[in-house]
C-alpha cells in the first residue's frame, strides 16, 4: 500500500504527461504481481467496492472525531479522503498500558495519537503562583510537530514494533471484496490506524473510487503498454476481456506469454466523442463531406448483444464511460435480440413522442426498477451507429457504410423500442443553420423539444475511441441567457478548494417587502481562472454575513455583482422558492458594468416557461 500511496502522491503533484507516464511505467516495472495489477485496476476505475461509500467514511471520522471540527475541516480542504487522512486521530492501543502501566486514557477526538496522554502530564497542572513562565521545548503534540516531547520517541518506536505492518494493496483489495458490510467500518479503521497520512489518503481514494489525481484510464493503460513497448491501442482493444489483477496482460507485456484474447461476448467498446464546433470552423469544412443528425437530449449508451459459450444471447447496456447500466433498464434487454453493438441515445417515449430530459431523469440511477416506473416511463433506444454486426467489427469502416449496416440491422431487429435516428438533409451551412434553429419544421416534428442541437459526422470517419480531431462535431442549440445577481458564495471542492467558486444567484421579484431578490440557481463553472480570482476577491471583500461555510454576499439595487448566466432549460420546481429550476446553469460573463437593479426579473423566467411548452415538471 505504501508504494502505491507514494505513487499516487507523486502523480498528484506532477503536471507533465510524460513525467506521469515515466512514474507509472517505473511503478509497473518495480512492483510485483498482483499489486501492480490492482494498481492498474484502481487507476482505470476497474475496481469498485459497493459498500465503501462516502457516507461510511463520514461515519468513521465523526465516530472518531468531533463532527463540527470535521465539518469545518472538510469545508476547508474540499476533499473527503484528504480531510479524513489528515485529521484521523490514531488510536494508540497497547502502548499506554505496556509503557506506563496504567489504563489508557480515552483518545481525544481532536488530537493526534498520544496527545491525551501527554496533556495529562502537561504543565497545565503546574500552579501559576509558583512559576510565572515555563519554557516548553516540547510541542506537546502527538503526530504533530513532534520534536520535543521526550517520552514520545521511545513509545513511537515501541508502537512500530508492536503494531501490524501496513497492509499491501492486494490485501486491501482482496479483503474489501470479501468483507461484509458490517465488518467494513472496523477493518477500515484498523487500516487507517496502521497507515501514515499519505497511506490513509491513498486508501480512502482507493476504496471510495474517487481518485481524481489527473490520471485518465487511457494514460494508465498507455503506461502499462510502455512497459512492453506495445501500442496503447492494442491494450485498449483487449481491455474488455481482461480483469484485475491482469496477470495475463503483464505476462504478455513482459514477453512471458501470448497476447490475451478477449472472450467476453458483450464487451464495451470505447466510445467516439465529438468536438464542439465554433463559428470559425465552418469556413474550413465542406458540407458535402458531412452527414447531420439531431442531437438528442437523452443519455448516450452502447447496447451490446453477443452469444456466450452456450450460444445464448447476452445483452448489456453501457454508459459512455463503460459503466454497466443494464440493471436499470431490464425492459430494453429483450429488444436486443440480435448480436451486434449499437451506439445510440436512451430516451423515454410516450405515444411515439420523445419526452424531455426531465422526464428521462426519473429512470436514471435507479437501483430498483418497479413495473410502475417501466410502464410510466417507457424506455427507448434511438440508434445512430453500429460498431459490430454479428461477429464483424465495423469500426474501421467509414461512417456512411456503418450507417447503411445500421439501417439494415434496425430493420431486421424490427422492434418498437429501437429505431433509427434520422438524418437531417442540408446542402449548405445556411440550410443547416435554419434546421438547427427550427428542428420542428426540419424533420424533427413533434420530437423537436427533445432536440438540443445537431451532430455533424464525416461520411468517411472510422469509429475511433476518444475525441479525434475533425471527425465528429456537435453544434448545440444556443443557451438561454439571463442577468442575475450574486447572492451567496461557497468554497469549491477539488482543484478549487479555498476559492469561493459556488455561486447562488437570484433575480428580482415583487415580494411582501417590496422589490427583492429570489434565488433561482447555483453555478460553479463557466468562468475563467482569472474571473474566478476576481469573484473570489469580490466575495471576500463584500461578505455581509457568514452562515457556516456559506457567505452572504452584498446584493442591493446599487451594490453587488451581476452575473450573466447561461442555461439549457427551465423546469417548474416546487422545491425552489422561486418555483423554477435551471438545467446546466453556468456563468457566461461577469457584468461589472451593470448595477444589480438592472438584472432580470422572475417574470422573464416565467415567460420562458410558458413559451416553451416542452418544459413541464415530470
Amino acid at each position: 500500500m505504501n508504494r502505491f500511496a507514494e505513487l499516487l502522491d507523486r502523480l498528484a503533484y506532477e503536471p507533465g504527461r510524460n513525467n506521469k507516464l515515466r512514474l507509472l511505467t517505473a511503478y509497473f516495472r518495480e512492483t510485483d504481481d498482483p499489486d501492480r495489477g490492482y494498481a492498474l485496476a484502481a487507476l482505470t476505475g476497474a475496481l469498485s467496492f459497493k459498500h465503501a461509500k462516502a457516507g461510511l467514511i463520514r461515519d468513521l471520522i465523526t465516530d472518531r472525531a468531533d463532527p463540527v471540527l470535521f465539518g469545518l475541516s472538510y469545508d476547508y480542504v474540499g476533499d473527503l479522503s484528504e480531510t479524513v487522512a489528515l485529521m484521523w486521530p490514531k488510536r494508540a492501543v497497547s502502548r499506554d498500558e505496556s509503557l506506563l502501566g496504567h489504563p489508557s486514557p480515552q483518545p481525544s477526538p481532536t488530537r493526534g495519537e498520544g496527545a491525551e496522554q501527554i496533556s495529562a502530564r502537561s504543565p497545565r497542572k503546574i500552579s501559576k503562583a509558583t512559576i510565572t513562565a515555563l519554557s516548553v521545548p516540547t510541542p506537546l503534540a502527538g503526530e504533530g510537530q513532534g520534536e520535543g516531547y521526550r517520552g514520545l520517541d521511545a513509545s513511537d518506536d515501541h508502537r512500530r514494533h508492536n503494531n501490524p505492518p501496513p497492509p499491501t494493496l492486494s490485501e486491501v483489495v482482496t479483503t474489501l471484496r470479501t468483507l461484509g458490510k458490517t465488518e467494513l467500518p472496523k477493518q477500515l479503521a484498523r487500516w487507517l490506524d496502521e497507515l501514515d497520512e499519505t497511506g490513509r489518503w491513498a486508501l480512502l481514494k482507493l476504496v471510495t473510487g474517487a481518485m481524481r489525481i489527473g490520471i485518465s484510464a487511457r494514460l494508465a493503460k498507455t503506461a502499462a503498454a510502455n512497459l512492453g513497448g506495445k501500442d496503447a491501442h492494442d491494450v485498449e482493444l483487449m481491455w474488455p476481456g481482461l480483469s484485475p489483477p491482469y496477470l495475463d496482460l503483464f505476462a504478455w507485456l513482459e514477453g512471458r506469454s501470448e497476447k490475451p484474447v478477449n472472450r467476453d461476448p458483450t464487451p464495451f467498446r470505447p466510445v467516439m466523442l465529438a468536438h464542439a464546433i465554433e463559428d470559425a470552423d465552418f469556413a474550413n469544412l465542406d458540407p458535402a463531406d458531412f452527414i447531420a443528425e439531431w442531437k438528442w437530449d437523452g443519455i448516450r449508451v452502447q447496447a451490446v448483444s453477443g452469444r456466450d459459450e452456450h450460444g445464448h444471447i447476452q445483452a448489456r447496456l453501457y454508459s459512455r464511460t463503460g459503466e454497466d447500466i443494464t440493471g436499470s433498464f431490464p425492459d430494453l434487454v429483450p429488444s436486443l435480440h440480435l448480436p451486434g453493438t449499437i451506439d445510440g441515445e436512451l430516451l423515454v417515449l410516450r405515444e411515439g413522442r420523445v419526452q424531455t430530459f426531465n422526464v428521462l431523469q426519473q429512470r436514471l440511477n435507479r437501483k430498483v426498477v418497479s413495473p410502475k416506473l417501466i410502464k410510466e416511463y417507457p424506455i427507448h433506444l434511438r440508434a445512430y451507429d453500429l460498431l459490430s454486426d454479428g461477429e464483424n467489427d465495423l469500426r474501421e469502416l467509414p461512417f456512411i457504410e456503418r450507417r447503411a449496416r445500421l439501417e439494415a440491422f434496425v430493420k431486421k431487429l424490427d422492434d418498437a423500442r429501437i429505431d433509427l435516428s434520422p438524418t437531417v438533409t442540408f446542402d449548405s451551412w445556411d440550410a443547416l443553420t435554419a434546421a438547427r434553429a427550427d428542428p420542428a419544421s426540419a424533420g424533427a416534428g413533434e420530437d423537436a423539444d427533445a432536440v438540443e442541437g445537431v451532430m455533424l459526422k464525416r461520411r468517411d470517419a472510422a469509429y475511433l475511441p476518444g475525441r479525434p480531431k475533425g471527425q465528429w462535431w456537435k453544434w448545440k442549440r444556443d443557451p438561454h441567457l439571463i442577468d442575475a445577481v450574486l447572492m451567496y458564495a461557497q468554497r469549491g471542492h477539488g482543484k478549487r478548494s479555498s476559492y469561493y467558486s459556488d455561486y447562488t444567484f437570484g433575480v428580482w421579484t415583487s415580494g411582501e417587502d417590496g422589490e427583492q431578490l429570489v434565488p433561482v440557481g447555483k453555478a460553479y463553472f463557466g468562468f475563467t481562472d482569472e474571473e474566478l480570482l476576481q469573484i473570489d476577491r469580490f466575495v471576500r471583500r463584500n461578505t455581509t454575513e457568514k452562515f457556516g461555510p456559506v457567505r452572504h454576499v452584498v446584493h442591493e439595487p446599487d451594490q453587488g455583482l451581476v452575473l450573466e448566466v447561461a442555461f439549457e432549460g427551465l423546469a417548474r420546481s416546487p422545491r425552489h422558492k422561486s418555483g423554477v429550476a435551471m438545467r446546466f446553469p453556468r456563468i457566461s460573463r461577469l457584468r461589472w458594468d451593470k448595477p444589480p437593479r438592472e438584472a432580470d426579473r422572475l417574470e422573464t423566467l416565467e415567460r420562458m416557461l410558458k413559451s416553451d411548452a416542452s418544459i413541464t415538471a415530470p
Partner: protein
Amino acid sequence: MMRLRYGDNFAASTQAIAYGEELRLGDVKIKFHPAGHVLGSAQIAVTCKDTCIVASGDYKDASDPTCAPFEVVPCDVFITEATFGLPVFRHGNAADEVKKLLASVALFPERAHLVGAYSLGKAQRVIALLREAGYDAPIYLHGAMEAITHYYQSRGVALGELRPAKGMKKADLAGTITLAPPSATSDIWTRRFPDPVTAFASGWMRVRARARQRGIELPLVISDHADWDGLTATIEATGAGEIWVTHGQEDALVHWCKTKGLAARPLDLVGYGDEDEHEAPPANEAEA
C-alpha cells in the same frame, strides 16, 4: 527588523525591550515573552491586579534554530492566533521535510531547486535546517531575501555561506538550492535557472489542493505557526479559562475550546483572517 521591512519611519517613537523585562504603566505590568515565531517575536503579557492577559501574536511551539523557543505563559485570558486552527493541520517534523528537499536535489543534480519561503523567518529557518541536516554547499538567495537574512547573521544566527543568485551563470545553478519569496517562484525571474524544481515551504502545503493551485512540485510542510495540536496543547498549558481567537480559522478553535469547558470567542479583527490564507507577501517582496 521593522526598520528593514518598513523603512526608517515605521513608527513615531520606539522603545526597545528585552524578553522578561517588566514595564509598568500605572497598575498595569507588561512583559514580553518569546513566541518562537521568528527572530524577536514576542507574546505580550499584561497583568493588572489578579488578572493576566496574554496576547500570543504569531507563535509556534516547534523548535527553530533561528529564534528563542516559545514559552508557555500561564494566564487567565489567552489571545491566541489560529492560522492553522483546523485539525487537518498537523505539520510533522520540519527536519523530515528538509530531507525530502535534499533527496530531490540528489535525484535531480542537473536541475536547480527553487524554494519559495517568506523572506522574514521562514527563509532563515530553512537555511538553518539545511545546515543542521549537513548540507554545506553555498545557498543562493533572491535579492529580496538578502537584507533580512544578513540581519539574522549579524544577530549571531549561523547560516553558512550565502550567495546572491543574481549574476550567476545558468549552468552553474544546476544542483543548487535557491531561496526566493513565494511570488518569485512563478515569475519570469525563474528563467535564469536550469529546469527548476519548484518547492514551497509553508504550513499550507499540508493540503494538496493548495500545492497544486500554486503549481508546486515539491511541497514542504514547514510552518512558523503552531499546528492544530500545538494550538490546542498550548491553550491547555496556559491554564487560561477564557480564550480569544483571532487571525485565521477561528471557528474550529473556538468550538474546540467550548468542548473543553473554556469560555471562548472569535476576535474579528479588521484586516486579518481570511485574506491571510494567501500569505500575500508585502509589496517590497514583489520587486527584484
